[in-house]
């Protein structure tokens, strides 16, 4: 019943398959954005922006998943680079809960590493960063290739270069601490 009401509220120039594609791909799109931002709330903000754009687009349904994931990666990287990351009250609370139940030292190290990884990700060439995020979000080589208009063979090369560069950035940051 509720679902009917929600669909009704989307009347207007919104593509007819949005509901189906949203329910199928929303978690995946959030996952892509979260890889970049490491923030569930910001990742959902990004996913909302992505689906709003998608809802008014004419992207073929068969290309929807790839388009959504690429858009999520780009928007999340934009957020990361523009320094618009905001730590919400909920995240602060959640972080406190996590620290309370986990080993404190390990949690701090993990959080620091994650933070440095995002900073390093923001420094990568955009196409390398997007390919890396898509691959680590579970897209297959064929899916990454189709989404980024690459050959399958070059996906491995791009991901490898991105991982190598990211590892160097992480090592550099660690050694300068």
């Amino acid at each position, binding site marked *: 019943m509720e679902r009917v009401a929600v*669909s009704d509220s989307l009347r*207007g120039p919104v593509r007819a398959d949005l509901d189906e594609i949203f329910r199928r791909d929303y978690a995946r799109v959030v*996952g892509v954005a979260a890889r970049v931002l490491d923030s569930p709330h910001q*990742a959902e*903000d990004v996913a909302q922006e992505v689906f*709003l754009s998608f809802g008014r687009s004419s992207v073929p349904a068969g290309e929807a998943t790839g388009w959504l994931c690429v858009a999520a990666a780009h928007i999340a990287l934009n957020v990361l680079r*523009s320094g618009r990351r905001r730590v919400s009250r909920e995240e602060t609370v959640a972080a406190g809960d996590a620290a309370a139940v986990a080993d404190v030292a390990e949690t701090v190290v993990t959080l620091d590493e994650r933070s440095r990884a995002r900073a390093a990700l923001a420094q990568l060439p955009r196409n390398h960063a997007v390919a890396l995020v898509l691959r680590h979000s579970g897209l297959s080589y064929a899916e990454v290739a189709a989404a980024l208009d690459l050959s399958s063979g070059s996906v*491995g*090369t791009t991901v490898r270069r991105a991982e*190598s560069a990211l590892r160097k950035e992480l090592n550099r940051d660690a050694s300068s601490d």
Partner: protein
Amino acid sequence: MRHPTDGMLRRLLDEPAGVADSDRQHVAGCSRCLSGLAIIGEDAAIVETSLSTEAAVDVDVDAAWRRLSAAATATAPGPQLANVPARAGRARPILRRPTVAACAVAVVLTGAGVAAANDWLPIFRTERIAPLSLSTSELNSLPDLGAFGDVVLTGDGDVHSVPDARAATAETGLAVPEVTTLPRGVTGEPLYQVGGEVSATFTFSTDRTVEAAAEAGTTLPLPPPGLDGTQVRLVAGPGLAEIWSRTTGVPSLVVGRAVAPTASSSSDVPFEALRDYLLSLSGLNDDVAAQLRAFNADGSTLPLPVPGDFVETDSAQVDGVPATVLATRDRTMAAVVWVDAGVVTAVAGSLDVDEVLSIARELR
């Protein structure tokens, strides 16, 4: 044999089946390639760990869909007034958008006073705004005015961008509200948009109403004598908006100002008769109909129909003026709107209530 590339070794880690048999066999017997594969595997594992996140674990798709629905409705492109044909039959689609239709019906239904002559008599002037909470299904079930007669757009909004605040004031005659402090997460310069006066004339048609009732499978009560041909003219604008957007074009903060709506009637039928007759045809339940009748007291309160299942309303004060506060139930968007001296001002965005109220109270 040539050694496989690093890219191929990387794929070998993830999708061995995607690598040719000959390459796999080579790697298995090549110490150099095995060494390279180990380094690549280590890098991949470290990157995987450092990019790990728990964010997607607890996604609530239903809640996310409700949020998207609210945002899609709020950011739906406005009526393309410049391109709208002037005749009612073709103008209907823009009035079918639930909120627009509800606003138009509400303004007509709540106009006050008795139009006793054939001249245009002012029956409504917005001095304040009050929310009228409707369920989504009630909003969607509201018939547009085209079901009751002809709607002719006699004004052209011509919404367009202008380079700066000075140009916005020059075109609209309205002072541009100056935001003194932007909330966190909102940056940059706003886009300025202006629109001219928009007006529409609604002419009640008994024939059209009978036709609509027949389509709905209902029979009509007899209309009051003289109702056929009664006209109500709605006028709103000009107006302006300052829009701060995200990279995708989704507004994060909108501050808008416009000359508030007014309505006039040419009818020699008591307005209450028109109102009650339309209400009897509207399909609204008794509670909502009673609320609309209550707005009629002095013809100065504009009902603001809101989807009560998505939006909560509250009241507040902005510089001593009563204001209506709207917030989506998932707390993703908030707005405050008020009327002062015939000018309606609104502050809205993907912000919380405290933020929009703070911005509103600090406007210059």
